[in-house]
Structure formats: C-alpha cells, structure tokens
C-alpha cells in the first residue's frame, strides 16, 4: 500500500522536502539489488519507514518490488543504457514513472544503477488504460513488449498537473568521485547542466567546480569526506539556473568510504517561484508591519473577520502578538459596542453594492486602559468573488484617525468659540493678504453688523471706502498707509454707513505681520461695532466737561460773595473792632473762621475739578528742580515744624505735567509734615527706584501712620480721618494725588504703621 501524500509546496524550503513534495525518489543500486544510496520520497515505497533500506528485495512494498525488479532485470540484460517505464500502485490507483540508468561506475565489481521513481496521480478518465497497463505489468513477462508499450504510454500520456510537468522536465544528474576526488563516472546531464565537457583527468573536478556558482564543490566534497555526513546545498550554474546538489559518502561492502556520489537536481522553476514568493511575502509583510494601516479581511458568508493584522492591537493599547493575525472574536471584543452593528451594516453595504469603488466608514474601538473610544477609518472593497460573481470576502484597510478626529473636533470647537466670541463682541475679522494690493476679505459678521450683502460690501478697501464717513476717510487712508509702511499695531475709530443709511461707529484694528518679506505681508484685523460705546464715551466726555465747568462756575460764583464777606469782615474789624463788646468780638471771630474755612474748601474743590486729563501738558521735566521749588513753597511749614527733609538724586528727564507733579509732591510732603506726632520733629525721606519701564518714587515719614483699613479710602475725595481741631485739611489732597496719577498712567499706594510712619509710593512711566 502506498502512503498518500498531499502536494503542498508552500512552506517547504529544502530540495529534500521538495523531492517529497513532488513524489520524486532517487536510489543507487548495484547488480545484486543492494541499495547504496537513496533520497527523497523513498519512504512511501518501503515497508518499514524508519529503517534505511539496504536491499531492494524484501524491503519494498511487495507490489512495487515485483514491478521494479522486473524493470531492473530488463535493463540488466539490455544494451540500452536507459530504461523508462511505468509501474502501478493498484491500491491508490497511481502510476509511478520509473527511469533506470546504467552507470559507468562499479562497486565491488558490480555495476551501479541509478533508479528514479516519479509518483503521480492518474485521472479517472484514464482508468481503462490504467487497468490494462496494470494487468500487463503484473502478469506479462514479455520484457520487450512491456518496455515498448510502457515507453509509448509514457510519451502519449498527458500531464495531469503542473507538478508532473515540472517533475518530468526536472533533470537529475550525478557524478561518482573517488576519495581523491577524481571523477569516476558522470551522467550525460551534468555536461548539459553546467556546460562542461567531461574528460577523464584529475583536474576535471576543479574545472567542474568553476562551473558551479554559490559553493565550492571541492570544499564541500572534502568536508563530506571528513565528517562523513550528507550535504545538501543549492547552487547555480553560470547561467543562473538553480540546482540542488546532494553530496553523499559512498561506502564499500565493508562500510569503508570509497568515494562520493554527487547528484544534481534541477530546481530552477521551483526556486524562482519560491524566491518570487519570498519577495512578495517579504514585501507584503513589511507593508503590513510598517504601514500604520490595519489590514483585515471579512468573510461575508460567515459574517466575521477572517484576518486582522496585529497592529490593531497597538492602537487599542494591547501588546502586539507574535503571530501576525488576530482572531475574529478578539477584534470584535474591542469594537466600541455601539459601532458593531454599524460595522456589520458597512460590510453588508459593501457586499450588496458589489462595487469595486471603496466605501468608507468611521467607527470606534475601545482602548484597553483608558476605555476611551478611538476613531478609526475603514476603507473597504470587494476582495474575492465566487464564479457566480457573489462576494466572498471583503478587504479593509483601516487607519487610526483618532488624532485627526481629535484635532478636527478641537478645531471645530475652537472655531465655534471664536465665532461666538466675534458674534458676542459684535466684531468682524478682516484680512488683507497682500499689503500692496487693494484686495481684502471681510468675514460675514460685517454684513450682519452693517446690513449690507457681501456683494454690496465687496472685497477691497476701495469699495469699503464708499461706506466710510467723509470726515474719517482721510485719516483712515493715511493711517492705514502708515500702518503698512511702519508695520506697527493699528487701531482707529471710523464711522461706517449702514443699510439704513445711518453712520455707526466701528473700531478697526490690525496686527502687523512680522514677516520680513513685505511682498507677502498679511494683515489680519478686527472690525468691532462700538457705536453705543462711542456714543456713551462722547456723552460721558461732554458730561465730564459740563461737570468740570459746573464745579468751576459753582465754586467761582460761591467765591465771589465769599470774597465780599471776607473783604468786609476785614474792613469791619479794622474800623469798628475796638468799639465792639467782648461777645460781639467773639461772634465776629467765629464768622471770620468759618469764612476762611469755606474759602479753602471752595479753592480745593476748584483745584480738583481742574485736574482734567485734557489740559495735561506732558513735557520732559527735571524732577530735582520741581522738588526744589516745592520745598521753597513749603519753607514756612518746614521751618515751623523743624522738619528734616532728605532728598536723593531724582531723574532729570521725566515726561509729565509740571504743575500736576509739583502739586503731587507738594501734597505728599505737606501731609508728611502735617500729620506728625506731638513733640516729634518730622523726618522725611524722598527717593526713587528705577524699574524697567517706570520710576517708583517714595516719600517716607515718621508721622502718625495710617491704619490699614483706611489705605484705600484716604484717596477718596473729601475723605478725612481726623477732626479739624486735630489736623487741618479738607480731604482733597490725596484725592488730587490719585487723580494726577491716573492722568499720568501711574499708580499710587502706601505702606504704613500706626505711630511710626507712612511711606507713599507712586510711579511714573519712563
């Protein structure tokens, strides 16, 4: 019985395995049926698989043995050097091609034969012929007849499969060498294989070695002689044809080495296919491994994935497994539950549409650790169909689009926020992509704000000019021009005509692009609707002006009668004081004091109302000079209080309004002198600290100090902390200081400790 063998060439890499694959067996037998060498698929013919057979008789499967021995007898007594015939395996209904060659080699004076057995399948259509031949082979002892008939049969028989063609054309050649590597005999195929003429000389082996590429055959032979082990290698001839070379030790009857058998088998077709296959597998493997895409195939009938490449695991935070593919249930387990149906529908969709155009779908898988869904994009198309054209499987390339999706979502959110911000702030964006050209772009908010359609607004500054108020046009053009030239930040309030034919205030602003290439300058800015603010601002300014005017007039008009009172109190006292009774003198004293107090109140009120921002005259001032003048003015108070004032060097050039800063110093120094503890002479220190963008001045005294809770309130107008009997004052001085600082974009604050002193700080920008 012949053991069944399944052809399966994929995954087999050695020629020995290949021999088995294609059912090829090679044996070397001498006249006495002793087997000297066997290779390939011999096991199928022998009763005992494990033992290496030594003799044809008694070790082969009986029916094979009978037929094979018959063939052997035939060639032994024939003049022909080669015999080709078929023998048959009745059980498996198989035909085995036999080729026996006489060799020139003898061992123990016995001639050696090489037997090549090719196992093949016979299709059922040949059954009749098969039975006939089988009958002949088993029963007919007429040698000639069998031989001829077999030869004819061999020639006529058609190839049953590709392996048969392959095997029958695949040549086998051998060389016998003695221990000194002299060639004893050589099959004719050898010279055909390697393009060398055989000659009976000791140099032949070296000449022959040159014709073999890949290995030095001489070295290999020596190695086999030394190690006494079989050597199988793949070599090429000078034309690039692949051969499998087997070098085996040849032993005499006593088991002593007596030479080598080198056999060659043409494996070119197989090898080329294998190499191509390897290339494809390599390429595909690399592609799959390196590509960020996950490749998967989906079996439509089973409704499950037949292959999922392993990098899907990486996406989901699992360890990438060694084997390239994942099982269907693993993959399905990591799909975001809500998306399973979605994905199945997708495959149904691809299958039913039956189109070759890929269909895409976005779905999610769940990350192992974070349990968060990750977005994937699947692109599927039909992979395999059956003969009827029905879709069998679908191939999908899947990409991780989680980051893209995240960025997209963030961008959408951001855009939405910006959009909302612009809408809320009633602003529009504009862009001027090329500073030299008139062309501009306005976002649609401008249309919402003005009521004009995008077409009406147009897309250039010139067109926008039509809507700008005549009074603002000139300054708009000139400031825009200087902006593009100087590349500084730009801001301007302009009036734009709306669809209702009303002019509304807008603030147009822009940021200069720092690009050095002016040609490519891109200006992006905003246009904000500020009409109400602007109107309120104007109203406020008018109100402020009115208020100041009112305060001035009120105080002026109050002062006028007060002056009269003061004047005549003076005259009255001068002319009639002596004649007055004591009580009358006292009353007059009260009237006079009240008048003086009212006068000073009115004066302060006026001074406060006059500290407006508009009349500010900012010039470069030497603060040392200002301080000098202040101290001169305060000379009387300094003398009477016995104050010590220490002034360090102050900046010589500060941009400020001289009058106001003078008033500031005067108020602060006067306060320091005024608010002094009893029986203590004031010690006042004036100095400055230079900061990066401003000067920080300080005026430090050793006075009564101010409680922390009053730090802010003391800057309020008419805020007094003391009774007039204790310390004089109207509570206007520090309010004025605070206003002066506001006018100068500075700040004023203090640190203090009760009963030990106060330090006032204020800043002036450089």
């Amino acid at each position: 019985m012949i053991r069944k063998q399944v052809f399966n060439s994929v995954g087999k890499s050695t020629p020995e395995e290949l021999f088995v694959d294609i059912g090829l067996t090679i044996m070397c037998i001498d006249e006495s049926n002793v087997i000297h060498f066997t290779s390939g698929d011999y096991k199928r013919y022998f009763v005992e698989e494990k033992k290496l057979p030594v003799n044809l008789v008694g070790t082969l499967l009986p029916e094979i043995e009978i037929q094979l021995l018959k063939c052997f007898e035939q060639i032994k007594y024939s003049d022909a050097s080669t015999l080709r015939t078929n023998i048959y395996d009745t059980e498996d209904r198989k035909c085995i091609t036999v080729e026996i060659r006489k060799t020139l080699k003898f061992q123990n004076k016995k001639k050696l034969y090489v037997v090549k057995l090719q196992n093949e399948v016979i299709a059922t259509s040949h059954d009749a012929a098969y039975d006939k031949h089988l009958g002949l082979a088993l029963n007919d002892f007429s040698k000639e007849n069998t031989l001829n008939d077999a030869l004819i049969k061999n020639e006529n028989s058609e190839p049953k499969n590709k392996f048969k063609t392959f095997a029958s054309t695949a040549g086998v050649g051998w060389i016998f060498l003695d221990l000194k590597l002299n060639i004893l005999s050589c099959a004719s195929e050898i010279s055909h294989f390697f393009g060398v003429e055989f000659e009976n000389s000791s140099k032949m082996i070296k000449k022959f070695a040159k014709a073999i590429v890949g290995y030095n055959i001489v070295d290999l032979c020596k190695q086999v002689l030394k190690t006494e082990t079989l050597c199988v290698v793949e070599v090429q001839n000078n034309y690039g044809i692949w051969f499998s070379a087997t070098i085996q030790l040849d032993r005499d009857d006593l088991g002593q080495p007596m030479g080598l058998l080198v056999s060659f088998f043409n494996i070119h077709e197989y090898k080329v296919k294998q190499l191509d296959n390897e290339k494809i597998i390599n390429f595909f493997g690399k592609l799959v491994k390196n590509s960020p895409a996950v490749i998967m195939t989906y079996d439509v009938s089973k409704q499950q994935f037949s292959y999922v490449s392993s990098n899907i695991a990486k996406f989901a935070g699992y360890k990438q497994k060694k084997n390239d593919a994942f099982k269907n249930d693993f993959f399905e387990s990591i799909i975001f539950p809500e998306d399973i149906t979605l994905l199945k529908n997708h495959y149904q969709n691809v299958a039913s549409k039956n189109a070759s155009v890929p269909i895409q779908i976005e779905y999610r898988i769940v990350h192992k650790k974070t349990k968060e869904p990750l977005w994937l994009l699947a692109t599927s198309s039909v992979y395999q169909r059956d003969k009827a054209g029905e879709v069998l499987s679908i191939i999908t390339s899947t990409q991780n689009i989680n980051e893209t999706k995240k960025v997209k979502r963030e961008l959408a959110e951001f855009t939405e926020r910006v959009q909302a911000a612009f809408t809320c702030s009633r602003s529009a964006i504009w862009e001027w992509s090329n500073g030299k050209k008139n062309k501009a772009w306005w976002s649609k908010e401008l249309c919402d704000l003005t009521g004009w359609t995008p077409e009406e607004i147009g897309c250039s500054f010139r067109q926008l000019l039509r809507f700008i108020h005549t009074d603002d046009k000139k300054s708009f053009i000139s400031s825009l021009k200087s902006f593009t030239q100087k590349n500084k930040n730009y801001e301007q309030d302009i009036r734009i005509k709306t669809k209702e034919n009303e002019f509304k205030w807008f603030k147009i602003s822009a940021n200069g692009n720092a690009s050095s290439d002016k040609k490519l300058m891109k200006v992006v800015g905003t246009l904000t609707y500020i009409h109400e603010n602007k109107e309120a601002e104007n109203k406020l300014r008018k109100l402020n002006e009115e208020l100041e005017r009112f305060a001035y007039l009120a105080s002026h008009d109050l002062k006028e009668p007060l002056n009269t009172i003061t004047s005549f109190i003076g005259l009255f006292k001068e002319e009639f004081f002596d004649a007055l009774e004591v009580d009358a003198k006292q009353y007059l004293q009260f009237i006079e004091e009240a008048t003086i107090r009212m006068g000073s109140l009115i004066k302060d009120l006026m001074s406060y109302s006059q500290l407006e921002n508009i009349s500010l005259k900012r010039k470069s001032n030497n603060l040392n000079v200002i301080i000098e003048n202040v101290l001169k003015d305060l000379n009387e108070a300094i003398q009477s209080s016995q104050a010590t004032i220490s002034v360090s060097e102050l900046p010589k050039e500060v941009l400020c309004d001289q009058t106001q800063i003078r008033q500031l110093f005067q108020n602060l120094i006067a306060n320091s002198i005024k608010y002094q503890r009893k029986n203590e002479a004031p010690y006042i220190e004036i100095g400055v600290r230079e900061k990066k963008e401003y000067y920080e001045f300080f005026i430090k005294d050793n006075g009564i100090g101010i409680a922390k809770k009053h730090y802010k309130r003391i800057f309020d107008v008419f805020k007094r902390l003391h009774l007039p009997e204790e310390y004089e004052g109207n509570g206007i001085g520090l309010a004025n200081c605070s206003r002066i600082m506001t006018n100068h974009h500075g700040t004023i604050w203090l640190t203090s400790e009760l009963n030990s002193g106060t330090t006032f700080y204020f800043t002036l920008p450089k």
Partner: protein
Amino acid sequence: MKQMDCVLLVDDSLTANFYNKKILNTCHVTKEIVEVHNGEEALHFLKACEIQNKKKPNVIFLDINMPVMDGFEFLEEYMKFSDQFRSDILISLLTTSNWKNDMDKAKEKCDLIFDYIEKPLAKKDVEHVYDFYTANMKH
C-alpha cells in the same frame, strides 16, 4: 509821598469796586480813582484819554469775569493801542478766578500784565504795584 494820577478799577461788582476804592484810599497812593463796569467801558475810557489827551490811568485793576466784554477780550483790544500809549500803564488782574485756564491765559499775556491778584485786594498788593510804579515809570 508822591501820588499816582489815576487808578482805573474795571469790575462789574459794585461791592468789589466799593471795597477796592476803600483800600486804595486807605493807602493814599492815587489822586483819582475811576470806576467802570466792564471791558468795553474801560476801552471807551482809554480811547477818550487817547483822543482828548486826558490823563491816562497809571494802574488798571482788571477783573476777568464780566458781562459785555470780559477781561481777556479787553486785553485783546488793549493790545491795539500804541506801545507808547501802553508804556506807562500797569495792569494787575484782580479776580476771584483761580481756574487753571485763566492762569495760563494770563501767563500768555504776561508782557501786558504786571500782576495776578486774587480777590480780595489787600493793602500789600496795592503797595506792591505802587512801589514798582514809582521806581520804574517815568512821570
């Protein structure tokens, strides 16, 4: 003590003029005191002096806030008189106003103005202008 010939008081307030006259009289610095009630009247008076060759005032105490023509408007017109005519007249602004703008305006006209006095007029203010007049003005 040598007295000035004439002092011109320009003020719409009768009380103020009354008081100022009182002060001037106590100081005994002038023979004559003329009282007008706004810039226009002052201008007319000066023009009359110029045309009729009457005695000019040596000192003018000028209020700022007045109806018809205020102090500054008067100064504008006063500038139109010849330098020679103006050369021996001293003008002191005598006003309740200590508004910054008024002060600044006054400073702009400092070549025309001798002094800036806040009401009420005090004896020392009178003495100040009198001393300067007697020391510097030709007679």
